[in-house]
């Protein structure tokens, strides 16, 4: 099951440049939360603060508190420990190109020393089913490489790979921006199903996508969280003029 995320007074920096300013936010467990805002507003930086990817950039640092369930992200938790519980899917599908479909999905478990073949088979099937890809690839699990799949299939493969380690939270950074409308529709349908088991945070440039898949939406601008509310409120009667200007396309 998914867990909630609590973010308190988070500031993020790239060297001397501050990218996020005092972000406070509660992400509900087993819901999809969308983060929207113009390019450079800090939404991707924010999502990367949730799984400690931000600090992988030289000179980058984070201040503040992030709790994922009972786990304190910046207080004694190792990145490896954290990422077992927080999966991530990126803008561009990034399957391991030389590995088979099966090995792509099993890679996380194998890296953790998991060797039981029968159990691995079960996990691979369950994860590919969870990512709505099983029916399309079940006959070529070992024959085809991850890179031989279509863009939409590759993205679902990456989702399956993330699900295989049974995370509680799934972070998605513009997961559909490189996909056609049909593949996008499949991923959105998948997000809808996945939130029964996982907590999902999705960064998207596509506002209609946020409106379609997320129960909650946060609007970022210039590194600040301007408004966070139920999605229907953000897209029908936002409280802040800046949010309204953005969702109506008056800037951004």
């Amino acid at each position: 099951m998914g867990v909630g995320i609590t973010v308190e007074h988070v500031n993020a920096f790239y060297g001397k440049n501050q990218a996020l300013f005092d972000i406070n936010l509660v992400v509900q467990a087993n819901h999809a939360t969308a983060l929207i805002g113009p390019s450079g507003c800090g939404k991707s930086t924010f999502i990367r603060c949730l799984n400690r990817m931000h600090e992988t950039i030289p000179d980058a640092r984070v201040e503040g508190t992030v709790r994922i369930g009972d786990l304190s992200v910046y207080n004694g938790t190792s990145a490896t420990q954290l990422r077992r519980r927080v999966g991530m899917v990126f803008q561009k599908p990034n399957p391991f190109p030389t590995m088979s479909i099966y090995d792509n999905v099993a890679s996380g478990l194998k890296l953790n020393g998991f060797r039981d073949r029968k159990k691995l088979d079960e996990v691979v099937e369950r994860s590919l089913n969870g990512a709505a890809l099983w029916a399309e690839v079940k006959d070529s699990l070992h024959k085809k490489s991850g890179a031989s799949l279509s863009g939409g299939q590759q993205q679902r493969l990456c989702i399956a790979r993330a699900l295989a380690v049974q995370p509680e939270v799934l972070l998605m950074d513009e997961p559909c921006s490189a996909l056609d409308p049909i593949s996008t529709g499949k991923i959105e349908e998948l997000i809808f199903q996945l939130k029964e088991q996982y907590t999902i945070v999705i960064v998207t440039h596509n506002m209609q996508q946020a409106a379609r898949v997320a129960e909650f939406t946060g609007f970022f601008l210039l590194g600040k969280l301007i408004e966070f509310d139920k999605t229907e409120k953000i897209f029908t009667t936002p409280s802040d003029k800046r949010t309204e200007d953005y969702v109506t396309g008056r800037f951004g």
Partner: protein
Amino acid sequence: MTRTRFQQEMEELREKLLRMGGLAELAVDRACQAYSDRDLARCQAVLENESLINAAEREIDELAFDILATQQPAAVDLRFILAVTKINSDLERVGDQAVNIAERVMDLIELPAADLPVDIPRMAAAVGTMVRRALESFVEGKAELAQAVLEMDHVVDRMRDEAFIMLVRKMNEQPEVTQQALDALLVARNLERVADHATNIAEDVIFWVLGADVRHHAQTIAAAANQTDQPGSQNQ
């Protein structure tokens, strides 16, 4: 990203609705004037005007449908388009009521003139004010103007009730003017319906400007105004 084409289409939608509002307002004015002056030519003008109103209704719906399909409007823009389609429908009904009044007047012109205990011009003035103010609230995007229209509705309701009592009494006392009294009663009822449409228009303006649903007292305008800044002026 200023979405120039979208803004142009929204402006076009607004202008079309205002033109339609002008046509509907004119139809009611003409019908009421025809009642006062027993003027057949004005009645005919109202009947001819109706096809223009109907055509305008279809044009507005078509444009609103196109914008919804192609531009995916959100927030204040989405509320604006929903409000326009509903106001459009109310204005078309206002046109229908004007036609009903004109038909009653044509009937009255055929009958001997009778002294009836009902002040239709006074009621027409009150209803005309409501329609005008409702349209002004749309032009200005001001919820407080729309609120003033809502407050006038019960005044017109009372006028209709009084007209009903007085005219029924007249029919009992002077059965020979029953037909005329019945026509006048129907005119009063048509005017009251026009006032109801003006009220609906005002409610739709409040929804557009504040995002508040004040129909059937679902939400008070004061509570809604506290929640939201008035953004309607952006579509001016």
